[in-house]
């Protein structure tokens, strides 16, 4: 089983990201389960969503305590909650930021090899394609590039099914852009 935990704030599409990822896994014939963490959702409040992917039926319904991949859609969360809790030593970490780990002041909190940590300028990519600061699809494209747990084509197909039409199109462009960027830079830190 591969477990992804997505942190962000209300309005950034955290729950939609988990859903899209689960649909992408479903498209590949896998079993998957997406669940939002349950709160009184509102703009700006910290939000968590979970997605499990497996080759067999998923029965587990606890929150994801030990994620294999962690997506942080909003770097201002670091001071609010312990987003890194339970991150597996072999896990992946994707952070939406154009700054570096050191600049973000989180170097001491991360115990992962460098090649497992990616800083993605997801808001900037989203603004370029979607014209709105919605980093969720971008980070899913990045997840596909960095982990290989899901194919980028499945991600784009899932986005198209959730958001048919122009909104889907621009999100797909944004996801593909991040996929290409991270595929090319697979061994380097990204701080563009």
């Amino acid at each position: 089983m591969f477990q992804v935990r997505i942190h962000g704030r209300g309005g950034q599409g955290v729950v939609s990201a988990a859903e899209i990822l689960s649909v992408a896994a479903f498209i590949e014939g896998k079993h998957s389960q997406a669940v939002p963490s349950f709160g009184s959702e509102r703009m700006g409040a910290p939000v968590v969503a979970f997605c499990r992917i497996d080759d067999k039926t998923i029965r587990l319904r606890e929150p994801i305590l030990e994620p294999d991949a962690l997506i942080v859609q909003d770097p201002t969360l670091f001071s609010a909650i312990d987003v890194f809790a339970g991150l597996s030593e072999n896990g992946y970490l994707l952070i939406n930021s154009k700054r570096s780990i050191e600049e973000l002041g989180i170097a001491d909190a991360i115990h992962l090899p460098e090649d497992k940590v990616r800083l993605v300028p997801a808001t900037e990519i989203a603004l370029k394609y979607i014209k709105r600061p919605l980093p969720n699809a971008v980070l899913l494209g990045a997840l596909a590039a960095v982990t290989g747990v899901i194919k980028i084509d499945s991600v784009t197909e899932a986005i198209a099914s959730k958001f048919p039409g122009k909104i889907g199109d621009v999100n797909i462009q944004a996801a593909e852009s991040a996929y290409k960027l991270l595929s090319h830079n697979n061994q380097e830190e990204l701080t563009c």
Partner: protein
Amino acid sequence: MLKQIEGSHGVAEAVALCRPEVICAYPITPQTHIVEDLGVLVKSGKLTNCEYINVESEFAALSVGIGSSAAGARTYTATASQGILFMAEAVYNASGLGLPIVMTVGNRSIGAPINIWNDQTDSMSMRDAGWIQLFVEDNQQAVDIHIQAFKIAEKLSLPVMVCMDGFILTHAIEGIDVPEQKQVDKFLPPFVPRQVLDPEDPISIGAMVGPEAFTEVRYIAHQKQKEALKLIPQINEEFKKIFGRDSGGLISTSNTEGADTVIVTLGSVIGTIEEALDEQDEKIGALTIRSFRPFPLEEIRSALKNAKRVVVFEKCFAVGIGGIVANNVRMAMSGTNIPVYEVIGGLGGRPIIRKSLHKLFKDAVNDKLENVTFLDLKKDVVDRELEREKQLIQSGSVAENVLRDGGVVNAAKTT
């Protein structure tokens, strides 16, 4: 067709496949997505011959449902939490009048303190209201059991409550095989009401019944629930033939044969429990109660008779006595010397995690469980508040004090 969809959406599609003629809709978290999705299905013309009524309250939702069902329309509604309390009088009336309404309860706690998260206190508050209550484990069962529910309800002329864990199931997106319309049409014939209010042929239902007949009417209600014990497995067999899935029945068991310890539970927590059981080596089995009303005393007794101990895990309790489900299970086990332990967990949405379950299993097999255990109880926070109440007459609000002591919020001091 296999789809990756939200549980609530799956339920809406399943209900639509049952061709309801009246849907009474009033929103309350966490069931709201179900009635919203049904609204979309009606508005878009995918669900035809159905009157979708936005009502002004839960009391109205079920009251309108009583009227439409009595007029011979296949009727559906959904609620949760305080909503089911607000419709309480109508809940008893629907069953007392013998009206085959199907209602989803997206299980949620009951306040105060206000809490929107999952436990099963809401359905349990209506356990003696005369409805059939079916609890589902996952979203496939939620879909399948709604389809079975209409058939069970209409065969018995009794209302059925389908209970699904709020958020954990209603908001989970997972693979669901949504049946085809022609399969459902084959399984579920058009509704032929046992009694119908028709202006062309006026009758009255809901007569005043005095002491001379009240006992008999109530006794018949009890007998009908007993009939349901036979009917529910039969309908599941019919369902299996058409849909190829075993989704219903009164109970389900896993590894209970030869188990020293059996965990008894209801709802979605069985998934996490079974995952945890797979990770350990003790002889522990699990039994899930699907039909809580009627309560399958004989089936449960038979499945548990060789166990050394029974642990009932439930997301609700009766304040002042303890486990609700456990008490019912004890009735099934009366005359045996098998101890029945009660574990209360998942209240107000507290996550039930494998780590806590492993400790629980270990304590259980070593007979170290208390009669009533509150899983993951923060004893220090409880003790601090109880001590405060001893020391101070004006100790303030328990909820605010506990939030502050637990470090959850910087709640304002009341003293």
